[in-house]
């Protein structure tokens, strides 16, 4: 362990002109450490903390009254409601998918398994705009499926809530699966085999053995999935059509306010999303700290 706190104490000198060498060979001199830490703190403050602080500073620029005013506007309230609704649909869908995908990938060996994993990673590398676009092309009113649904059932998907939900699902579905897969792979199938040999059926095995083993990773995944679902902008922006009060989510409403020069309103609404991000980070860090061993290190970011 090398750190600033436990530097070796100076040795008792034997000779008279004595220069003890005390920097451990696998760390840097204290000066270097201080400089590097300061540099990192500065960079993170400038690039990350400042934008976060600015959101709140701008939101409260004209005082708390003006801040609260934002949340009296029907547009903001409708946006909040819609965002909650979208997350309430998208997250459970992705939860079920995440569990099913993790089960199939972690508990079995079959050809194409690694391809399936890559497919699940895909939304991390495609642009959210493309994610929105794919559904416009597939389900828009002048596409085959979209036209059929509109004519026969009067169901609109694009520029309507279902499209927003679909786009949100697409950009957020990897989060839960990605947390579960490495963990369940690590845990292997021993526990499940034991449960089955003791007479449990498949569902009992899942609910009493597998689920408790992965519950923290699951919560972790849900948390990340939810944060992204509520904050998604690009994919939803192209697919929503921005019908005020109907297909405008919180991030979209932030944009609308901002473009109307209602800066305080934009930042006030944004501050809710920023607060959500903060809560997510706090819970996430707490989970990582408390249950590090029960959350497989996913390794790469989201």
């Amino acid at each position, binding site marked *: 362990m090398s750190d600033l706190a436990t530097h070796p104490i100076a040795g008792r000198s*034997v000779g008279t002109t004595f*220069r*003890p060498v005390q920097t451990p060979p696998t760390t840097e001199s204290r000066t270097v450490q201080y400089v590097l830490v300061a540099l990192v703190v500065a960079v993170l403050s400038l690039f990350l903390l400042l934008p976060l602080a600015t959101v709140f500073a701008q939101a409260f620029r004209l005082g708390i009254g003006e801040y609260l005013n934002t949340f009296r506007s029907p547009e903001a309230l409708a946006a909040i409601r819609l965002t909650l609704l979208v997350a309430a649909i998208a997250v459970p869908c992705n939860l079920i998918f995440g569990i099913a995908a993790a089960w199939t990938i972690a508990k079995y060996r079959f050809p194409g398994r690694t391809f399936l994993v890559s497919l699940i990673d895909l939304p991390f590398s495609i642009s959210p705009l493309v994610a929105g676009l794919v559904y416009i092309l597939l389900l828009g009113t002048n596409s085959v499926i979209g036209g059929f649904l509109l004519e026969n059932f009067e169901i609109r998907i694009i520029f309507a809530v279902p499209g927003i939900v679909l786009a949100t699902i697409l950009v957020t579905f990897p989060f839960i699966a990605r947390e579960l897969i490495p963990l369940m792979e690590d845990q292997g199938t021993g526990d499940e085999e034991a449960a089955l040999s003791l007479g449990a059926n498949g569902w009992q095995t899942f609910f009493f053995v597998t689920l408790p083993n992965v519950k923290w990773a699951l919560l972790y995944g849900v948390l990340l999935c939810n944060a992204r679902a509520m904050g998604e902008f690009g994919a939803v922006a192209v697919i929503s059509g921005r019908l005020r009060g109907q297909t405008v989510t919180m991030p979209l409403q932030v944009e609308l306010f901002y473009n109307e020069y209602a800066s305080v309103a934009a930042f006030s609404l944004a501050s809710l999303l920023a607060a959500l991000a903060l809560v997510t980070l706090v819970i996430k860090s707490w989970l990582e700290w408390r249950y590090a061993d029960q959350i497989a290190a996913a390794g790469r970011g989201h």
Partner: protein
Amino acid sequence: MELIIRNIRKEFDRFAALHDVSLDIRSGELIALLGPSGSGKTTLLRLIAGLDFPTAGAILFGDQDASEKTVQERNVGFVFQHYALFRHMTVAENIGFGLKVRPRGLRPSPEQIRRRASELLELVQLPGLEKRYPSQLSGGQRQRVALARALAIEPKVLLLDEPFGALDAQVRRDLRRWLREIHEATGHTTVFVTHDQEEALELADRVVVMSQGRIEQVGTADDVYDKPRSPFVYGFIGDSSRLPVRIENGELWLHDRSIGISDIRAPNGSGTLFFRPQDVELVDGCSGCIAGTVVSSRRVEAMRRVELAIGGQHSLVEIELPIDHPAASRTRVAFRPRSWKLFPESTAPQAERVIESA
């Protein structure tokens, strides 16, 4: 290079890993630091190398105080337990690394470095593996490459941390013999750490037995086995049985019986009697002997190990009998140790108050 360790103390946070350790290592000697885990042997090795720094005390390389030198300047060859080979470099690059990083004036030419690497591979009996990567080698081969890398810098002392710890038994035995040969061929002052007494006794010129941050005894294999100076050494090196006894006027008593062992030098009070299970003679009647009830017996190679419950406290001791000895089937056995050692109980360092069999 002579190595002098003078009153070294090492604390990690508040925990003292080494208490006042002193040791002289002669030039060209092969020394084993032997002890259980947590005895401070690896800490001592790392202090010599300059990877850690003593809280107090000094280490001298010849007549030079090493405390003034960084690990880079000490020029020690250190072989790590898990070899610590550079995975992204070939075997030849690994061995040549120490030469390549020398300051410009002292650096051999790339051609010389390459030749030196090949010579060393020859020495460690791995010729032709220059282009391999560490991941393509077996454990024993990695160990040899690690040693070649340490030898490449022509070290003043060679330090090895559990050099054979991660290898399986057969490879260990082979490498042990081979290390002895290398040592004889190169003549480096060598210190190695091990928890395996067989390894230490077989390989080293002198063995340093360590326990709980202290040196218990320094001596040849014969010394530490035949003349252990502390109960720890007696118990740690080889098999031993121990029996709590009472000393009255130089006479040793077990509960209310004299066991036929006496030493007029022994102070009155209690103590512990040590003997080797294989070094006992069976006796018939029991006046002045140790007698016990057979609790269990098991086969140990060519002999039979019998566990006896002795006296009122039911102290358990082990003795060894020939496999066909009739006593092994009896329920009661009496014996007398041929050689033994008594450590009277006292707060003073026990080593000062050892009483040995004649």
